[in-house]
C-alpha cells in the first residue's frame, strides 16, 4: 500500500506525521518511509539511522560537440524551452532550462549534441531499527525537483515489494513536485492546521487530489488553535477527518529537538491508531 502525506501549506506537520506513522506502523508491519521533499528533506532528522546504500542521481543534458556540428540550427528550433540557443557560430546549452526531452540530441543530423549526465542530487537508503528509509536530496542550484522524485519512486518500486507499506513524505504546495509524489499513491493524507492559511491551502490541495482522482482524508494538526472552518468544510463536503493532533507546546518542543512523539505522547498514539484503522479498513492493498 502506498500512502502519500501532503499538505498544500508548508510547516503543517507532514514530516512529523510521516516519521511517526512509519515508526508506529513498523511495530507490526513491513514499512518503508520515503522522503520525497527533495528540496528540503527533513525526515532523517527525526530518525536514528544507518546508511546501507547511497547513489548520485543524474539527468541527461545535451553537450555540444563543435567539431561535428554543421550549425544547421535544428536543435535551437526543436527546443521548446529555449535551453539550446545558437549564437553566431556557437551553440549554447542552458542546463537549468533543459527538461531532458532528448529532442535536440535525437534529432541532430550529425549527433553533435550527445546527452551527458548532470548530477541532480543524492539518494540514500537507510535502515532504522524497525523500518527502511529512503531519502533524496536535490543538489543546491538544481531547479527541477521532479526528475529526482521520479527516480526515487522508481528505486522504491524496484527494491520493495507490495508487502511493504510505503509512506511518502511529500513536498509542500500543489505544483508539479506534489503531483509527482502523490499521483501513484493508493491513499493521500492531507495534513493541515485549523487557521485561515491552513484552510485556504488545504482547499487547493483537496481540489488537486480530486483532479487526480485520489482517495484522500484530512488530518488536523495543532487542533485547538484557530477556528472550525476546516472541520465544517470537511463535514459539508463529506471529506473524512482521520485524526486531530492537539496543539501542545510539549509537542513543539519535542519536534524542535528532533524527537518522535508517538511513544511519548499518548494522544498522538491514539490519533495514529485512528489513521491506521481508517486506512486499513478503507483501502485494499
Amino acid at each position, binding site marked *: 500500500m502506498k500512502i502519500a502525506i501532503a499538505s498544500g501549506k508548508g510547516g503543517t506537520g507532514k514530516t512529523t506525521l510521516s516519521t511517526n506513522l512509519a515508526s508506529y506502523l513498523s511495530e507490526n508491519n513491513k514499512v518503508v518511509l520515503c522522503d520525497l521533499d527533495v*528540496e528540503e528533506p527533513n525526515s532523517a532528522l527525526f530518525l536514528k539511522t544507518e546508511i546501507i546504500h547511497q547513489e548520485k542521481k543524474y539527468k541527461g543534458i545535451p553537450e555540444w560537440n563543435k567539431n561535428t556540428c554543421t550549425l544547421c540550427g535544428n536543435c535551437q528550433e526543436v527546443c521548446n524551452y529555449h535551453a539550446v540557443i545558437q549564437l553566431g557560430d556557437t551553440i549554447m546549452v542552458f542546463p537549468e532550462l533543459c527538461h531532458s526531452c532528448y529532442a535536440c540530441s535525437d534529432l541532430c543530423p550529425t549527433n553533435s549534441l550527445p546527452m551527458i549526465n548532470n548530477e541532480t542530487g543524492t539518494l540514500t537508503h537507510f535502515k532504522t531499527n524497525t523500518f527502511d528509509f529512503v531519502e533524496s536530496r536535490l543538489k543546491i542550484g538544481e531547479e527541477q525537483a521532479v526528475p529526482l522524485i521520479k527516480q526515487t519512486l522508481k528505486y522504491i518500486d524496484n527494491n520493495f515489494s507490495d508487502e511493504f507499506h510505503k509512506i511518502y513524505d511529500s513536498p509542500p*504546495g500543489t505544483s508539479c513536485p506534489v*503531483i509527482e509524489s502523490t499521483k501513484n499513491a493508493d491513499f493521500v493524507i492531507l495534513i493541515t492546521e485549523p487557521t485561515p492559511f491552513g484552510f*485556504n491551502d488545504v482547499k487547493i490541495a483537496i481540489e488537486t487530489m480530486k483532479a487526480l482522482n485520489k482517495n484522500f482524508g484530512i488530518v488536523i494538526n495543532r487542533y485547538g488553535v484557530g477556528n472550525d472552518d476546516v472541520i465544517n468544510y470537511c463535514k459539508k463536503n463529506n471529506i473524512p477527518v482521520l485524526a486531530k493532533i492537539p496543539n501542545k507546546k510539549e509537542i513543539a518542543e519535542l519536534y524542535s529537538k528532533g524527537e518522535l512523539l508517538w511513544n511519548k505522547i499518548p494522544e498522538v498514539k491514539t490519533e495514529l491508531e485512528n489513521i491506521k484503522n481508517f486506512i486499513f479498513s478503507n483501502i485494499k492493498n
Partner: protein
Amino acid sequence: MKEIVVISGKGGTGKTSITASFAVLAGKSAVIADCDVDAADMHILLDPNNLKTEDFFSGELAIIDENICTQCGKCFDVCRFDAVEIIENKHTINKISCEGCGYCARVCPVNAITNIPLNVGKWFIANTRHQQPLVHAKLGIGSDNSGKLVAHVKNMAKEIADQYNRPYVIVDGSPGVGCPVVSSLSGANYVVLVTEPTVSGLHDLKRVYELVKKFHIKAGCIINKFDLNSQKTTEIIEFLENESIEHLGNLPYNEAFTKAMTECKTIVEFDSGEITNIITKVWEKVKTTLT
C-alpha cells in the same frame, strides 16, 4: 527601487505573517508581491480588491487528433515523460505528465499532434485595504511552470513600483530551494530569512542560504519562536555569525500570531506590544541596510 525577498527553506516558519507585517509598516512606500503562487496566503491578511485579473499562459500541451492518428506509436517511443498513453487502442496524451517539449509533434508522420498554449493560472493586481498595490497569483491545479509565474508576478510588481516611485518591492517567497525560489531570488537586493529553532528549521535555513550565496545577495535572519529551544537558537546564531548574516531579531513563541491570522489581521495590527515593537525594529534595520 529595492527588492526585499522573504524566504525560509522550511515551510510554516512565519514568512507570510512577517511579510504582511512589513507590508503594513511600509505603507505607501512599497509594492507587495506574493510569489508563493501555489499556496498564496497573503491575500488573507491584506484583503485585496482585485483591479485586474489575467490568465497566465506558459508552456504547451500536446493534443492528438484521433481522426488523423494512425496509431503508429512514434510519439509513444520518443516521449521521455511517459505522457503518451494507449487507452482502448488509442494513443492519448496524459495532461498531467506532458511537459510540452513538442518532440512527439515533430516526429508524428501524419501531423496528428498539435501543441496548444497552456493556461497555468491567473495573476492579479490588487489594492490592499491599506491602499497599497499587491500583485498575486493562483497557480492552476497541478500546473507546471510556477517559476515563470513567480517571475511574472515579480516583474509586474517592479513595474508598478517604478511607475509610482515606490522605493520598495516586498516579496513573499515559497518554501524549498527549487524553481519558484530561484525565480523569486533573481534580481533581489536583500533576503530576509525566517527560521525557527528546530532541527528542521536550522537544516533548511542552511540549505536555502547556500542557494542565496550563489546569487551574492545580502541576507538577514529573523528567529521566530526563539524561546522554543534555546540550544537550537544558540546554534542558529552561531551559524549567522559564521556566515556574516545580519541577525535581525528574535520573535517569541506566542499564540497571538495564530489569533491575528484567525481574525485575518497582520500581527502588527493585532498586537500593540512587544511583538509589533520587534517587527518594527527589524523593518527599520532592513531599510537602514538598504540605504
